[in-house]
């Protein structure tokens, strides 16, 4: 991370490239939308792609930066989504401006997800490795199970909650059921737009890239690389691991609000183990610790199944095969060496020794 003697440091340049990539992509897509160059189904994917990018960036904070495997990230997304939906519904009269209402909903969604992340993080941070992974999986399933039985209604008296049935809400005349157990949230006012999605992506990238360059970020990465060594130089390992986890949960919650408010109805089952895995796939394929990689892979892998619609019956099969092949090819020793040689021939400087990127090299 050492700065060069003149001009901008390598990290700054790399970060600027990432921002530029996001902005250029946004401008190009906006131009395509206004010229009607996108198909209808692809246009519908724009907001989900933004939400998935934010999810991938936030999970990268845990998996790439903090080095912990989390298998329940969709849980935070659903906490955010359903909190946001309830907040937006109850503020429908108080804040008529849809953009402002969505922002408030996002703040609440992110806040609630952060609280959930904190509560889950305290026990989780006592564990390590695969045990930590399985506990996050368990929490994700618990959140899904609880939300599947949550009923929320709004009437003149305020917001009502119940864990048994919609009738048990005891609402006054004219009350509206916002979340209806397994049927999920119904009658959502769609507030999410591509522009807001883009802003959220920028925000997430900004937060994570800044964290990475900060003192706290370096502490988080030190804990990842060697916990005991980090502890011995006085880094509070639990604090920094928890910090990454909670921040990641907050971003995931905001992504959840963006995602949830893009549909007229959404079920808790949408945010299950498979969704958590989907986001993990984005992070791993994009490269651990690489924010740019997460953005690209989240975009490509969301469009890929859409692009394969022509072979509808086989698309998930092809997706699976692509996944396996990518992993096999990127880990093939012969190809790895070949790639290194190609890379080396482009470089003027004498060959650097190949660094094993076990824990994930960190670059933006």
């Amino acid at each position, binding site marked *: 991370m050492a700065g060069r003697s003149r001009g901008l440091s390598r990290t700054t340049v790399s970060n600027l490239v990432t921002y530029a990539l996001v902005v250029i992509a946004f401008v190009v897509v906006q131009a395509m939308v206004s010229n009607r160059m996108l198909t209808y189904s692809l246009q519908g994917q724009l907001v989900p792609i933004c939400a998935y990018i934010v999810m991938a960036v936030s999970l990268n904070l845990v998996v790439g930066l903090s080095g912990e*495997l989390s298998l329940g990230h969709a849980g935070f997304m659903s906490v955010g989504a359903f909190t946001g939906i309830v907040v937006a519904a109850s503020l429908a009269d108080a804040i008529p401006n849809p953009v402002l209402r969505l922002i408030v909903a996002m703040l609440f969604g992110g806040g609630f997800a952060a609280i959930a992340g904190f509560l889950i993080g305290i026990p989780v941070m006592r564990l390590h490795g695969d*045990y930590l992974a399985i506990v996050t999986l368990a929490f994700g399933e618990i959140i899904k199970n609880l939300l599947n039985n949550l009923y929320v209604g709004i009437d003149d008296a305020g917001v009502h909650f119940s864990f048994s049935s919609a009738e048990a809400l005891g609402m006054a005349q004219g009350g509206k059921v916002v979340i209806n157990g397994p049927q999920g949230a119904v009658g959502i006012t769609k507030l999410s737009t591509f522009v807001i999605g883009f802003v959220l992506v920028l925000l997430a990238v900004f937060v994570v890239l800044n964290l990475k360059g900060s003192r706290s970020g370096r502490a988080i990465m030190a804990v990842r690389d060697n916990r005991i060594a980090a502890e011995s130089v006085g880094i509070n390992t639990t604090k920094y691991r928890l910090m990454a986890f909670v921040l990641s949960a907050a971003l995931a919650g905001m992504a959840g609000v963006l995602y949830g408010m893009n549909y007229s109805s959404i079920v808790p089952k949408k945010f299950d183990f498979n969704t958590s895995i989907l986001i993990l796939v984005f992070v791993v394929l994009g490269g651990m610790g690489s924010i740019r990689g997460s953005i690209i892979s989240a975009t490509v892998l969301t469009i890929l199944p859409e692009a394969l619609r022509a072979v509808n019956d086989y698309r998930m099969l092809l997706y699976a095969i692509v996944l396996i092949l990518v992993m096999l090819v990127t880990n093939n020793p012969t190809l790895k060496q070949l790639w290194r040689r190609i890379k080396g021939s482009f470089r003027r400087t004498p060959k650097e020794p190949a660094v094993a990127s076990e824990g994930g090299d960190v670059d933006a």
Partner: protein
Amino acid sequence: MGFVSNLVNGISLGAVYAIIALGYTMVYGIAKMLNFAHGDIIMVGGYLCFCSISYLGLNPFVSVLVSIVGCTVLGIVIERLAYKPLREAPSLDVLITAIGVSYLLQNTALLIWGSNPKSFPNLFKSLGNIRLFDGQLVISSTAIVTIATNIVIMLALTWFTSKTRMGKAMRACSEDKGAAQLMGINVNSTISLTFAIGSGLAAVAGVLLCSAYPTLMPTTGSMPGIKAFVAAVLGGIGSIPGAMVGGILLGVAEIFAKAYIGTQFSDAIVFALLIVVLLIKPTGILGKPISEKV
């Protein structure tokens, strides 16, 4: 009698989880990988058995055999093609590959058998249920077969890992692969053998699971797979008796939660049990404590 009947059902369900968890735990112990495709092997086992009975008209016990052989071969093929090239790869890459294999199996099954659930025949009907206390307590033949199978598998595996050469090789590999290789153990074939045994057990579990809950779909294996994984961790992953204890405990907890607390929260309770146990004993009930070297 309700309590005893629930207990029997719980143990029976737990016995299935335990058999699946054995596959997880053995593979984890030796290859240090979370084999997420394991749950889908159960589903394949169920379908193979179903097809042998319904389409080929084979005898139920021959069908079970077909299913076991089919899944064993499938397990070996998957290991050779997808996991073996990744021995030196980062563990997350192996995990993603396993997830890819899981999707592959599910979607292949979807293409072959469609998404409509198939009704699995009761293989053990001819054995008859046991009625105790003037019919107040009925133990289904499936439950008896499941528990008996579980005990046989447990005894056989204990004998295999402690007495046979190959079993000892397996334990040696899970202890230290490098040292095992120096002692002349063929590590690759030992890992293949572990996958073969795990997949064969998954086929057995698939048949037992489908006999007890007779809806067969391409996603049938997912949830039992996750629960068995939880069971393996609960008992201490890598430990064979641990998988048994974890499986039974999880099955009993699930049935009791359904019976006394409410069906809708049973999953939350099962997963909460895991969290509580891991907080008290971070490496599971029978897991070896890991000491950290500086």
